[in-house]
């Protein structure tokens, strides 16, 4: 590749990627998804199974067939859909946590750690303060979790602002730190380890009043809790903050061009801190949904096994860092994870062992294709710019763009 030297106005890699990702409609992500499923189908075919039957089984497993009232086992579909939506809520929030940073030109790889801090805070708040009224307890626990996530993410923002430390590195390191904090707190002999189970590295259970209400399904058997509404509401707030608030406006300005933002009087460092903290709010809230919604306690192995924060990166990428896109991408990933769970796949249709791998294959393909899509968009713009059509690459310092042809 050649590098334009004298005046590179395109900014850091994150900014450039952001420019390509934050624009464009739903078409590219849709194509991306279809291609991913198509390639996944070829994989199924290679194992000697029928892709269509397999996808039908996976679709039924997601419970989305519940929306088609004429189809099969209603009760089973309902249970499946509940699980899909339980997955989806935290995925939306973690996706937002990544997307918001992205819009400010930051890579938040730390949603997992922020999520973990959220779960720790939620389990602490949920298992303490037993006397509180239920609704207040739930709200407080969620707030504490969100703030814990915000504080955790804010560290990365503050390091970026004060020392210029790359947030990719710091957030990854904070992921590990969060994991080990959890292991310490809930490990045998740890300060927050369960009082009544001395042999088990797990927290106390949260009290009944701190549980999120289950509105669909059996509340003792992981029915659907109201967290999904919290997540969708958060997506709405995400949109408003980003597009309608001064905070979001400044974050976007910084994301596109830190020097211009600085020159306009926006505190760039401060924006980094605030932006990361907002990301952490979302991820921390995601943690509270899992704890208050169905998990009710936190074992050390739960912390290390959780992937939701990392999946959030893929969700944000596929969702193009928009509120609505993130919601749909989260639903896709949540459904995929549920649909390929073994209990929903007859071994005669597709081998359960492979089904889980299929999920990973499809997820991986989506991320890969989204990245490839960015690459294509970039190449295309470059070509178009050369063709005199006003693009990203060929601007400085006196752009010869189509827009200026008519004086």
């Amino acid at each position, binding site marked *: 590749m050649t590098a334009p030297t004298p005046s590179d106005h395109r900014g850091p890699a994150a900014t450039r990627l952001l420019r390509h990702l934050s624009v464009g409609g739903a078409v590219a992500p849709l194509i991306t998804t279809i291609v991913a499923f198509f390639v996944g189908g070829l994989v199924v075919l290679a194992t000697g199974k029928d892709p269509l039957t397999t996808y039908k089984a996976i679709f039924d497993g997601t419970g989305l067939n519940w929306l088609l009232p004429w189809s099969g086992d209603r009760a089973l579909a309902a249970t499946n859909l509940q699980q899909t939506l339980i997955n989806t809520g935290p995925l939306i929030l973690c996706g937002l946590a990544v997307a918001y940073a992205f819009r400010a030109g930051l890579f938040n790889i730390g949603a997992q750690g922020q999520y973990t801090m959220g779960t720790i805070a939620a389990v602490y708040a949920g298992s303490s303060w037993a006397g509180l009224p239920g609704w207040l307890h739930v709200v407080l626990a969620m707030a504490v979790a969100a703030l814990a996530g915000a504080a955790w993410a804010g560290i990365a923002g503050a390091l970026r602002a004060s020392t210029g430390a790359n947030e990719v590195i710091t957030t990854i390191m904070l992921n590990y730190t969060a994991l080990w904090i959890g292991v310490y707190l809930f490990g045998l002999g740890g300060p927050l380890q369960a009082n009544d189970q001395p042999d088990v590295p797990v927290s106390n259970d949260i009290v009944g009043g701190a549980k999120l209400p289950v509105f669909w399904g059996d509340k003792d058997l992981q029915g659907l809790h109201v967290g999904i509404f919290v997540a969708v509401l958060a997506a709405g707030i995400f949109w408003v903050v980003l597009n309608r608030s001064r905070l979001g406006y400044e974050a976007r300005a910084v994301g596109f061009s830190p020097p211009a933002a600085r020159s306009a009087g926006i505190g760039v460092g401060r924006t980094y801190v605030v932006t990361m903290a907002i990301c952490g709010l979302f991820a921390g809230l995601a943690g509270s949904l899992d704890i208050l919604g*169905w998990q009710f306690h936190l074992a050390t192995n739960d912390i290390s096994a959780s992937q939701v924060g990392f999946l959030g990166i893929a969700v944000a990428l596929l969702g193009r860092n928009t509120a609505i896109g993130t919601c749909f991408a989260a639903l896709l990933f949540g459904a995929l994870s549920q649909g390929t769970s073994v209990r929903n796949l007859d071994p005669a249709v597709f081998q359960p*062992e492979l089904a889980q791998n299929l999920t990973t294959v499809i997820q991986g393909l989506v991320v890969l294709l989204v990245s490839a899509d960015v690459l294509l968009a970039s190449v295309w713009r470059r070509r178009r710019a050369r063709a005199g059509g006003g693009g990203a690459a060929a601007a400085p310092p006196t752009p010869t763009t189509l827009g200026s042809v008519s004086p």
Partner: protein
Amino acid sequence: MSLVAAGCGSSGNSSSTSTPAAAGSTSTAAAAPTGKKIKVGLVTDIGGLNDRSFNALANKGLGDAESQLGIDGRVLTSKSNADYVPNLSTLAQQKYDLVIGVGFLMADAMGKVAKKYPGTKFAIIDVDQTSLKGKPANVEGLLFKEEEGGYLAGYLAALYAKDHKMTTISSVGGQKIPPVDHYIAGYQAGAKAADPGIKTLNGYSQDFVDQSKCKELALGQIGQGSGIVFQVAGQCGLGALDAAKSKGKLGIGVDADQAYLGSHILTSATKKVDVAVFDTIKEVQAGGFKAGTNTTFDLKTNGVGIGKVSAAGTKYQAQIDKVAKDIVAGTITVPDTVK
């Protein structure tokens, strides 16, 4: 053959055969269907069937029951801890006669689901039934005295180490949870009994799946002078054994007999989960389910032990057999908590 190495023997590649075994269960496959045709479901923990130890063994027990007892089996693997409750309750809903949960990690989900489906029989491996919330009467806990197998492995390791001028041996645990610590406690006690001067190292990877984490930990221990690495971390632990191999050290397998991994496997501390699963299914088929209690498998009942001893260790076989006899006789008491 020694006393302890008997049992299921060196069942070489149990993992590779285990996968299709779960699927190919039809009545025709059962050459000699001896009993009532019951439906048995098995739910693995997040380690998955490829852990080559714990879940794989449970699956083997189910497969054995399918072919020998003519039962109908189904395995549900769990991808995340969010799968436990739906997996268990799906099987209960579909009127399985027996639902077996594999692993300590599932205790909580088991408690909830068992309470919801009092008519279904549940068994859970590695969990004390009395520790379940509400102590549901339809659950049988299947426990193992892992420390006894660990003791034998540690004893052997220390003998070998002493003769080969090694000062240190080590263990890699997945997490500090009872079934893991039982092994390690026994291992350390056995080692000290064989050579009071030996140094033991121990660490936890906080993971049962990701092999790189255990490998890293083991490499660290080897760097500190460990000559023999005992893995107690399921699939993750395979990485620890790999580390031992790549550094020319010895490894000790866990749960299943992992001698097939190569000559660097001194022995394995085994826990015959397959036997426990098979026995429990047989019991239920015969109508004799011991609900609301625990069944403990130990050296005496051949539920734990050590696997094939490599050529390097055969000269200590007699000493090990003697120790095993003492444990069975109760003259040696093996601790089950790590100090």
